[in-house]
């Protein structure tokens, strides 16, 4: 592969490039149409199980506040199945919660789309740029069906992405309702998120997230999460079902 050979050659001449430079060289493949290279391995700058809302508080509706209080009571009593339906089973916690994973994720930029490969339970998130769409298949032509996704929602919907100068804008809707926004905050089918993802500096990635769900929140609210660049190492195989404790909770939460 030309890019790889060139990078190796430079590396040997220079006696070792810094992480950022190497990452920039190696991922040139994807970047013909993308203004910024976000590729690399990333990890939350500091662990946080919950989103920290800008302005200090989440603007719950009465319904949302009631559900949130219920979740807090169930957490206190250890009744994970009662409020964290998906994760208690090791099923996909969905987005945006996965953006709070304490483990790493890797970003790949490819023509027409961007991938987030999560270490936690090997989950993949896909962001379509431009006109790329899911295959329209039906019962006579194959497993999986985009109409099903539309009917019942997904934990990790296919997001739509676009570039605004140096920022990747990621719009997501079409959610299931049995995941949580973070470790406690509920949402419904009408959740919509808009993420603005950019490099704050060469080794810091920022995700500014706007969250909207009129049944649960009186207005859209925002939060910011930061990540630090990590070495480009493979992820040890992560199988959530292997890590569950006797009470059924995953040992490492997403």
């Amino acid at each position, binding site marked *: 592969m030309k890019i790889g050979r060139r990078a190796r050659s430079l590396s040997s001449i220079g006696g070792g490039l810094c992480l950022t430079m190497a990452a920039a060289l190696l991922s040139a493949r994807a970047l013909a149409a993308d203004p910024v290279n976000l590729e690399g391995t990333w990890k939350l700058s500091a662990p946080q199980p919950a989103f920290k809302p800008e302005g200090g508080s989440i603007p719950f509706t009465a319904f949302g506040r009631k559900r949130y209080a219920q979740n807090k009571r169930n957490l206190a009593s250890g009744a994970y199945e009662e409020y964290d339906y998906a994760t208690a*089973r090791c099923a996909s916690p969905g987005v945006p919660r996965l953006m709070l994973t304490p483990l790493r994720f890797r970003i790949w930029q490819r023509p027409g789309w961007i991938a987030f490969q999560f270490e936690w339970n090997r989950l993949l998130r896909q962001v379509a740029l431009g006109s790329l769409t899911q*295959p329209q*298949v039906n019962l006579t032509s194959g497993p999986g*069906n985009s109409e099903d996704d539309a009917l019942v929602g997904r934990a990790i919907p296919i997001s739509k992405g676009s570039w605004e100068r140096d920022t990747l804008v990621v719009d997501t809707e079409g959610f299931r309702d049995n995941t949580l926004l973070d470790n406690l905050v509920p949402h419904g089918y009408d959740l919509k998120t808009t993420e603005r993802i950019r490099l704050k500096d060469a080794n810091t990635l920022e995700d500014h997230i706007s969250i909207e769900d009129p049944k649960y929140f009186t207005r859209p609210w925002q939060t910011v999460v930061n990540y630090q660049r990590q070495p480009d190492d493979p992820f040890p*195989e992560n199988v959530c079902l292997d890590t569950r404790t006797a009470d059924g909770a995953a040992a490492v939460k997403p």
Partner: protein
Amino acid sequence: MESGTNSIWRRTAALALLIYTSAAIAQLPGPPPGAQGPAADGGPPPGGLLPGGPNGPPGAAGSPGDGGDGRNPFAPPPLSPDAPQPSADPRDFDGTWYHDAALQFQITTDLFGSKLPFTDAGRKVEQRRVKSLKTGTPFINASARCFPPGQPWQMDLNMPFQIFQSKNRLDLAFEEYHGLVQIVLDPAKALPAAYMGSSVAHWDGNTLVVETTSFKDGLWLDVDGTPASKNAKLTMRIRKVKSDHWFLEVEFTLDDPTYYTRAWSWMRDYSWRPDMTLFHEYNCELQTGAKDGVDPSLVPEPQD
């Protein structure tokens, strides 16, 4: 009386429909928090249907479940001529690939048409699994539990996968089981033991030779349960080929003295399918992760 071909087609169709149905069930909203178990979702767990589902005739030759052209009945139509093409670099496998040949329920012969060279121990396991299907008490396997099932099973099912190729690795991300295989080029970066083993590769000309060892558990190589022990070494020789379309040709070689008297090989092709880049969601733990989430019609396999 239906023809053999028709019968095979119907079995394949049924299997794929079961996979489809179970995947679709996994998409259902599910019961509200507090409801009990997967039964509330109204269906059996995904994956659990595979070993208990329709299978090729036990002991019979590999079962090409196609309509005569060798493709699975659900393979999408051929790519349009204006679809994006892969890199011309023969060492660049990056992109979306799809096993569009008919699913073979049981591998009974090797690449050269010889019967599989079972040891007594291997034959015992294979016959036990085939018998369990005949008697209607199939065994729980990795797929039924939504665990990583090993490369042969993972790569046989007719769902797409990505290859993300970089200087240090090839990362294969699969739609089904949200599977992940990371192949490192530097042996110093080899991963510890895993259900998918630990894969290290090198180039032999333009063929990538991937050697996988350190399996955490034994494997089912196919739906009927052709076995590999956890001591096996699996080698995949992968090359990118163009005929009337681009595809990856993979020669699998299993070296497993526990179950086979010699190493043996089989082949698979994976077509270039950029139109299948965006995956459907495969969220099988939603059922299998529940208490009693594994299909109750399946039974634990005796351990040797």
